[in-house]
């Protein structure tokens, strides 16, 4: 179990944490994933907030004055807003917000999110703060890969919207290992590593060592 200090750490550091958690290998210098990438892409403007601080116990039950998304590119912010059942004039409830956040998570577009509120007269302004999942820039497969290489690359690149999610990568790698075992390569080793690139992107490198093939008698 990995314990991180707080959400919204730089994405490269988050990837390093995830890799350490799932057995992936960190990238070698100078592309060490612990170095946060510097994004040159324009960042979305933060939500305008002028309201007073309000605690959760006061916020729930009030009507929503406005909803905005921060931390996402305009396209992703728009997609997130589409997922929300809550809207202006709706009553903010724990259950409705939880359902909306669950739907946003399920899109695969974000790998962290939180909901913030501030008072706006008798209503509340709701801000959905997200960290976008990195985009898979490219996938390179090295080592002998006559059995799984091609389809694995396709599967990795076909991850929902080409977004990097550890679970997606792990499941593809697990399937590849299983295929090797089925083909008699019982010692096959399939490893992966991710390198953070500027602009919230990652490069995936999959290394396959097939090992000897067992022959049945």
């Amino acid at each position, binding site marked *: *179990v*990995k*314990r*991180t200090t*707080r*959400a919204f750490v730089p994405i490269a550091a988050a990837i390093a*944490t*995830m890799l350490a*958690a*799932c057995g992936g290998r960190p990238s070698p210098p100078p592309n060490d994933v612990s170095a946060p990438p510097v994004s040159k892409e324009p960042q979305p403007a933060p939500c305008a*907030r*002028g*309201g*007073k*601080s*309000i*605690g*959760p116990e006061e*916020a*729930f039950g009030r009507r929503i004055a406005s909803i905005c998304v921060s931390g996402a590119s305009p396209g992703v912010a728009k997609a997130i807003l589409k997922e929300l059942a809550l809207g202006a004039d709706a009553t*903010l409830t*724990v259950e409705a*917000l*939880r359902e909306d*956040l*669950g739907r946003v*998570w399920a899109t695969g577009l974000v790998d*962290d*999110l*939180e*909901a*913030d*509120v*501030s008072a706006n007269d008798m209503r509340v*302004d709701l*801000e959905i703060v997200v960290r976008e999942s990195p985009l898979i820039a490219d996938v390179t497969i090295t080592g002998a890969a006559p059995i799984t290489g091609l389809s694995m690359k396709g599967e990795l690149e076909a991850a929902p919207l080409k977004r990097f*999610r*550890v*679970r*997606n990568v*792990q499941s593809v790698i697990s399937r590849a290992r299983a295929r090797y075992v089925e083909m008699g390569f019982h010692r096959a080793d399939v490893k992966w590593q991710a390198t953070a690139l500027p602009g919230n992107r990652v490069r995936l490198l999959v290394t396959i060592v097939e090992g000897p093939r067992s022959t049945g008698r």
Partner: protein
Amino acid sequence: MRRQLVFSLLLIGAIASVSPNAEARIVDRVVAVVADTPIFLSDLRARATSHLLRLDTAAPENYDEGMKRTASETEMFREVLDRLIDEELVGQAAGAARITVTGSEIDEALDRVAKQSKLTRAELLAEAKKQGVEPAAYRAELFRQILEGKWLSLASTKPPPGSDEAATVRHRESERKRLLAELRAKVFIEVRL
């Protein structure tokens, strides 16, 4: 000790939703990820409600110092989150094994617990509500317990022949720990407290 206290205050601060921004306050966020499934702060708060009530109703001498209570809450939130993570792991493993729990199985369990407590089903649910557990939450808890029981029966080894009841219970608990440790080792888990 001092370091532990600072950490406790930080953790309580996070759970109490104190945003670094003075104007906006966090009302919900991801506190853990199990495989690709998020656990939200609202999930943690909902499950911790009855535990908080227990802290409130505990003997005053146990919590007459604020710091003691803070430490108790911190520990309690951590335990509840660990429990939520285990439940998610068991839920995923049970789903993969196509284990299901029906409404009538929950009803039967409810009646069994009521009978043991010499109460009717309605009285039992009313008593649970007094302790901060709504009927739906109580049924959900029974669902999780039955699911875990079925999964354990399927996945665990049998106790050694001739084991008495106490030995069987110990074996079951040891198997539960072993199987959960196996699940935790296989699955990507991140705690974001």
